[in-house]
């Protein structure tokens, strides 16, 4: 897989291996499984404060809906970019407009957080240098996290 400038306003992932094209196509769905990682994706900012419980309740009532809208909009942007790729959602290339980089970073982070929570991956496993065992679902999930992290690194650099 290569990541390169497509035009002045867009980047392109091309020559994507079919396995990684599948992982890319799965990104919006994986990112949407918030029920499996709700406490991490919508953390209570007052958890360590001695403030009143109402502060946490107000936060849930007023801030969480805003965050949900932001996260959903990011996933929709990514879905549209994937859907607009020339040969469909498992295409070997995908064009990412510069203006969509933030949405991609957000969706990638949502997906990584969800997958980590679903599999209860710890820091040691996530930062291990051993290649994941692809004969297991857990190994495939770890590969997915690393692949999404690689895309994030590319996009952070592009956003810079």
């Amino acid at each position, binding site marked *: 897989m290569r990541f390169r400038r497509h035009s002045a306003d867009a980047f392109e992932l091309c020559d994507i291996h079919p396995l990684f094209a599948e992982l890319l196509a799965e990104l919006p769905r994986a990112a949407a499984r918030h029920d499996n990682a709700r406490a*991490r*994706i*919508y*953390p*209570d*900012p*007052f*958890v*360590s*404060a*001695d*403030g009143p419980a109402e502060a946490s309740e107000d*936060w849930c009532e007023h*801030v969480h809906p*805003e*965050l949900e809208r*932001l996260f959903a909009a990011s996933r929709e942007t990514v879905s549209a970019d994937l859907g607009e790729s020339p040969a469909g959602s498992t295409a070997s290339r995908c064009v990412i407009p510069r203006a969509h980089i933030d949405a991609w*970073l*957000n969706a990638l*982070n*949502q997906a*990584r*957080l969800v997958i*980590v929570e679903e599999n209860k*991956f*710890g*820091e040691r496993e*996530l*930062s291990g240098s051993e290649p994941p065992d692809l004969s297991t679902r857990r190994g495939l999930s770890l590969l997915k*996290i690393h692949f999404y*992290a690689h895309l*994030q*690194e590319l996009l*952070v*650099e592009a*956003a*810079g």
Partner: protein
Amino acid sequence: MSQTGVLADIETRDEDSLALPWNVVVHNDPVNLMSYVTMVFQRVLGFPRDKATKHMLEVHHKGRSLVWTGERERAEAIVEQLHGYLLLATIEQAEM
């Protein structure tokens, strides 16, 4: 002490408590990438790159970094933005 005196004491302490600044603290998590956290600190907090990197490394090595101190309303706005980037951030009232 008279009843009035007790009330006055409570009110004074409440005002002191409200006047205390609030800290925005970012916590380590195994998912967010170092480059991503640095980028978010630059964007949300307006840190220059070297300061953003310093705080990112503090989060990474010490588990947490105090990134902003000030009035509660602004602290909440910053935390909301950090949560929008999926960073693990909390608000703590500063010690007297």
